[in-house]
C-alpha cells in the first residue's frame, strides 16, 4: 500500500484553503463566495483527516464529521440569506450590500 506523506496532504489542504480564501476576497458574486467558503471548510477538513492519519487516531475523522454537519447548516442559512438579499436589492453582487458603511 502506497502511503501518501502527511506533508503532501497538508500542502494540498493549505493550497485549497488559500484558493478558497482568494475566492472569498476576489469574487463578487455571493454564490461563489459561499462556494469558496465551502472549499475553505473542506480544506480544513482534509487537514484534520491527514493529521488524524498521521497520529493514527480517529479524532481527525470525527472532527471532519462535525465540519460536514456545520457546513450543511451554514449553507442552508447562507442560501436563505442569499435569497433574502436578492429579494431586497435584486442582485447577487456582494459589494452592493454596503448600506452599513461608516
Amino acid at each position, binding site marked *: 500500500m502506497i502511503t501518501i506523506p502527511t506533508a503532501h496532504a497538508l500542502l494540498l489542504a493549505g493550497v485549497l484553503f488559500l484558493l478558497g480564501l482568494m475566492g472569498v*476576497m476576489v469574487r463578487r458574486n455571493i454564490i461563489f463566495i459561499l462556494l469558496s467558503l465551502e472549499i475553505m471548510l473542506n480544506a480544513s477538513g482534509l487537514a484534520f483527516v491527514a493529521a488524524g492519519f498521521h497520529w493514527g487516531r480517529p479524532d481527525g475523522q470525527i472532527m471532519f464529521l462535525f465540519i460536514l454537519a456545520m457546513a450543511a447548516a451554514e449553507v442552508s442559512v447562507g442560501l436563505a440569506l442569499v435569497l433574502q438579499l436578492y429579494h431586497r436589492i435584486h442582485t447577487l453582487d*456582494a*459589494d452592493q*450590500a454596503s448600506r*452599513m458603511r*461608516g
Partner: protein
Amino acid sequence: MVQLLWLIPALPLAGFLILALIGARLPRRLAAVVGVGSVGLSAALTVCIVVGFLRGLPDHPSYSRMVWSWLAVGGLKVGISFYLDALTLTMMAVITGVGFFIHLYAMEYMAEDAGFSRFFAYMNLFVCAMLILVLADNLLLLYLGWEGVGLCSYLLIGFWYTDPANGYAARKAFVVTRVGDTAMAVGLFLLFDHLGTLQIQDLMIRAQAGWAAGSTLPTVAALLLLGGAVGKSAQLPLQTWLPDAMAGPTPVSALIHAATMVTAGVYLIARTHVLFTLAPTALTVVAIVGAVTLLLAGFSALTQKDIKRVLAYSTISQIGYMFLALGVGAWAAAVFHFMIHAFFKALLFLGAGVVIHAMDGEQDMFKMGGLRREIPLTFWTFLIGSASLAALPLVTSGFYSKDLIIWQAFASVHGGLGLWATALAGAFLTSLYTFRMVFLTFAGPLRTPVGHRPGWAMNIAMVVLAVLSLCAGFLEIPKTLSGGVHFFSGFIQNALPATVLAVSREVYESLFEWISGGTALLGAALIYILILRMPNFTTALVRSSAGGALHRYWFSGWGFDWLYDRVLVRPYVFLAHINRDDIIDSFFDLISWLGGLGHRVLSTTQNGKMRSYAAGLAIGAAVVIGMVVWL
C-alpha cells in the same frame, strides 16, 4: 441710643433691598419715600447718637460693638462689628446728613427718569457701603465697604447705560480704582501676616509695640494702604477716573464727591494714622502726592468747558489739600476740610444740576450765562458754595478749613515753606477757576432760554447746604481771630492726635493768614477782570500758540489719559488682539483635531463591503499566526 448704631447702615441697606426687590412695582411716590426716608432715618439716628456721644465725652471717647460673627478661620476672626469714635462720628454725620439732602434733591431731579426706583436702590446701597466703610472696626469689613462703594460708583456712573460712553466711563472708574484696591489688599495681607490681626485698634497697638519708627515694614504697609487711598480718592497717579465719572446723573456726582467714595482714602489714612506716623517716608509721600495733585488739578480746572468737569477737578484738588494735611500730620485740619468740603461741594453739584436742568441738559459753560436773574435762589446758593470753595476770608467755612491746612502745611513739624507755597498757589488757582465758573454761568447776557426751574425739594436741599457752607466753619476759628474757637479740633482729638507745630514758626500765624486770605481775594478780582472786563484779552491768550498748547494740555488733564492710553491700554489691546485666538487654547485644539483626524481615518475602513472585512480578517489572522510562528 448708641446701641442702635447697627441700624445706621442697616436702614439704607433695607431701603436698597426693598427697592431692588419690589421697587419696579411700587408707585414712584412710595419708592421715593423708601429711598429718601431710609437715609433720612439714618441721619436722624446719627443726630441722636452725636448728641449722646458729646454728652459722654470725655469719659467714653469710643464705643465698639460686635453685631455678628462674619467668619472665623484658624487665627482669623472677623466680625460684622462697628467702632465709633470722633472720627467715625464726623464721617457718619456727613455721609448721612449730606447724603439725605442729596437724596431729597434727587427725588425731584430724577422724577422724570424711567429708572427711578433703580436709581434710589443704588444710591441707598452706596450710602450703606460707605457707612460700613467708616464704621468697620476691622480692615476686612472696611474692605467690604470699600469694594461696595466701588461697585455702587460703577453702577451709578453707568446709570444711563444706553449710551456706550457712560458705560465706558463706569468701567474706567471701576478698573482704575481697582488698581489701588489691589495694592490695599496686598497691604492687608502684609499687616495680617506680620501682626496677626485685622482689628484696626489692635493693629495700631501691635504696630506701635512691634515696629520701629522708620523701618521698612511699616513703610511698605503704609505705602500699600496709600495706594488704595490714592485710587479711591482720585489722587495722582490714579486721578483719571474722576473727571469721566461725570457721566452719571448729577446727584450721583454730588454723592461721590461730597459724602462718599472719594473721601474714603482720607478716612483710611486718618484711621491708620499710627501706621503712617511710624513711616515718616510714607507720610512725606502723602504730603507730596497731595501737594502735586492739588496744583495739577487746579490748572486743569481752569481750562474746562463743562461745568461738572470743573467741579470734578476742583474735588481732586480739594482732596489734594486733605492729603497734604494728612501728610504734615494735621489730622484735625484734614477731617475738618473733609467736612466743610462735603457741604460746599454737594451744594455746588446740586446747583450745577439745577443749571443743567435749566439749560435742558447743556453742560458747556460757554453756552450759559445770565442765569443770575432767571434762577436767583440757585445763583445765591451757588455763589455761597463757590465763595466757600475759593475760601473767601472770614465769611465762608472754606476759609477756616482751608487756611488751617495752608497754615499747618507750613507750621507743622513735618511741613515746610515748599508745601506752604504749593498750597497757596493752589488756593489762588481755586479762586480763579471757581469764579470763572460762576461768572461764565451766571453773569453776562442770557445765551440760552431757561427750561426747568427747581422745585421745593431742590431748593430746601440747597439752602440747608448753603447755610452749612457759611456757618460750619465757625466750629474752628484760628486763635488770631478774637481768641479763636477750637471746638472741632478739640472734638477730633478724642480720636486723632493733635498737630505738632514747630514752635519757631508759630509767631508768623497772623501774617500767613493775611497772605492766604488776600490770595483768595486777589484770585477772585483777577478773574473778574479777565472774564468780565477784558474778555478779548483772555480769548487772545488762549488763541496764541503757546497759550493754546498749554490750554489743550491742561484741558486734557495734563495728558494722563493720553499717557495711560499709550503705555497701558494700547499695548494691552494689541496683546489681546494678537492673542485673540488664544495661544494656550491651541494645544487643546490640537487634541481635539487629532481625535477628529483619527475618526476620519478609521471611518474610511468602515466601508460596508463584506469582502474587505474578510480581507482584513485574513490579513489580521496571517499577522497573528506569523507572530506566533516566527517571533
